[in-house]
């Protein structure tokens, strides 16, 4: 149940300002750590700022979607949604420059497969990756425990999918609306878009589901207002109506705002990232090898 979950206690934030503050913090921490010898101007040109980091993260979210689409065997949507949620959680407290999102992305997905009981072996999983598969295997295994630590071992993620089924069932049972299943395509596209926003870090899954249902009802020219006020909330819940309306409004704003396309900037920022990323976490670099060797020596 969501109300008693770790998702609610640890991973739902008040508003986007909170999220942005956390991301700024992560960015600043990294810049201060590695840019102590530079002047402020140099720092600005050398490192990514929080916004650029966010763009990189967004682009990798879309990459993850494409990867999941092509994944063999076919992957249920909630696995992807869980992975996406892990990715978002991870980069709230970590900088893109510190851990490259390409690596974290596949690790998130692999972990999500396990948590959501989508049973694939590591070999099967890696077979979907183009490029060096044995390297991908080591990357995933190396990062998996670290990722879990970073998301505080809060592995269960609640999604709006079940709540949507609940609402449709409830509407079918309690209203006279003709064929509520007409809303499904609209609901799906609404939720698909919301996945790429911060909505899952701001609202409860039931609220997202309600917003999706209301949005798609208006798309097919139906009105569910009376359902919400009279049947869903009823007498006892009328005091919460105002809050709920506000929540739904905010979700719909998030949904509208998504349109930005960053593909143009991506190549520029990626190049910059290749230069300024933490070489200690880049498996191709000499520094990485040194660090691993040192860690090995210390453990003896």
């Amino acid at each position: 149940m969501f109300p008693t979950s770790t998702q609610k206690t640890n991973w739902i934030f008040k508003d986007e300002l909170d999220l942005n503050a956390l991301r700024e913090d992560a960015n600043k921490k990294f810049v201060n750590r590695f840019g102590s010898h530079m002047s402020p101007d140099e720092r600005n040109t050398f490192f990514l700022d929080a916004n650029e980091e966010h763009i990189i993260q967004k682009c990798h979210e879309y990459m993850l979607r494409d990867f999941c689409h092509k994944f063999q065997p076919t992957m249920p949507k909630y696995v992807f949604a869980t992975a996406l949620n892990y990715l978002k959680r991870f980069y709230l407290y970590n900088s893109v420059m510190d851990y490259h999102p390409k690596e974290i992305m596949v690790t998130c997905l692999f972990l999500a497969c396990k948590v959501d009981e989508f049973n694939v072996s590591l070999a099967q999983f890696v077979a979907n990756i183009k490029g060096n598969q044995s390297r991908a295997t080591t990357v995933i295994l190396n990062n998996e425990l670290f990722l879990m630590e970073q998301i505080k071992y809060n592995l269960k993620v609640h999604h709006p999918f079940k709540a949507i089924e609940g609402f449709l069932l409830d509407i079918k049972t309690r209203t006279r609306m003709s064929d509520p299943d007409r809303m499904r395509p609209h609901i799906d596209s609404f939720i698909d878009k919301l996945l790429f926003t911060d909505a899952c870090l701001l609202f409860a899954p039931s609220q997202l589901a309600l917003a999706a249902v209301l949005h798609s009802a208006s798309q097919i020219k139906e009105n569910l207002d009376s359902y919400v006020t009279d049947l869903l909330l009823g007498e006892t819940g009328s005091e919460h109506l105002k809050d709920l309306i506000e929540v739904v409004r905010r979700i719909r704003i998030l949904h509208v705002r998504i349109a930005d396309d960053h593909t143009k900037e991506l190549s520029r920022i990626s190049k910059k990232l290749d230069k300024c990323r933490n070489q200690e976490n880049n498996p191709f670099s000499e520094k990485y090898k040194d660090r691993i060797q040192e860690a090995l020596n210390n453990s003896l």
Partner: protein
Amino acid sequence: MEELACVRCMSSKFRNPNLVFSFNVCGHTMCANCIEVAFMKGSGPCPKCLIPLRRNGFKLQQFEDASVDVEVETRKRILQDYNKTEDDFESLDEYNEYLVEIEDIIYNLVRNINVTETRERIDQYKRENKEIIMRNRMKLKREEQALDELIEEEKMLSQYKRDEVLRDEAEQRNKKLRVDSELIDSLARSNSDARDIVNTYTHKKEEIPVSKPKALSKPPINFTKFSTGVKFNQSSMPISIKEGPLFKYEPISHQLNGPACPEMTQLESLGYMKYIRRESSQELAGGFLIKTSCLHYVQECVSALYERKTGKV
């Protein structure tokens, strides 16, 4: 002393040096061939004293006199139960008496004196001292294990040391070889005086430090244990169960933080079940009820609907 011979075929070591002798509880010696023949069925009487014997009771004879072997065996068996140590007694005298008792018992058993009576004594002792016996056995086992571990560790250490020395020597040799080949090279190519070149290289060769026994670096640790101290591939020790208050079931109360939600029993009457598929017979056989899922869906859509985060961390 008469020659050691098999009680069945009477052949002895003198006639056939390859004979393998075994003995059983009665102390009579038999050769491996005769055991094979006489105890085909797994059990049978001793050919000499007609005591019923079991085939797997035969032990390899190590002493010339079989009775010594019998005593060793008996002692081993008795000491498994009579495993008290001096710490278990209040005074030295008591401990000594206990030791004498053990000797008495062993003597009786080996010489067949009052066997039934002695066995009763052992049984009684076992009954009375059950706990102490068990405890001491565990203790012995643990001590043995610790010893084994120590030996293993020492073995690894010495192996590592040997390798280290060999490595050093090889390095030394390589260095010398390199200097030699350099010398040949420069003799072939350089224009300066050959004697000078030879001199510098002999110096160089002397400069190579004699392999000194350097402080041994720690050998790499081979991980054979989990961090809890349990060895790999070892069945875990029995976990001691703590007695506490008994578990008492309390039905789960859902904090929905949302509008009221129908109960499991109401789903049918409210009409929710009309819009959801029936469970297949396979699912029913597995104990799956579609009602549960239905309730779950409905709960999911009302839970946390009133959620409002008012500031965090």
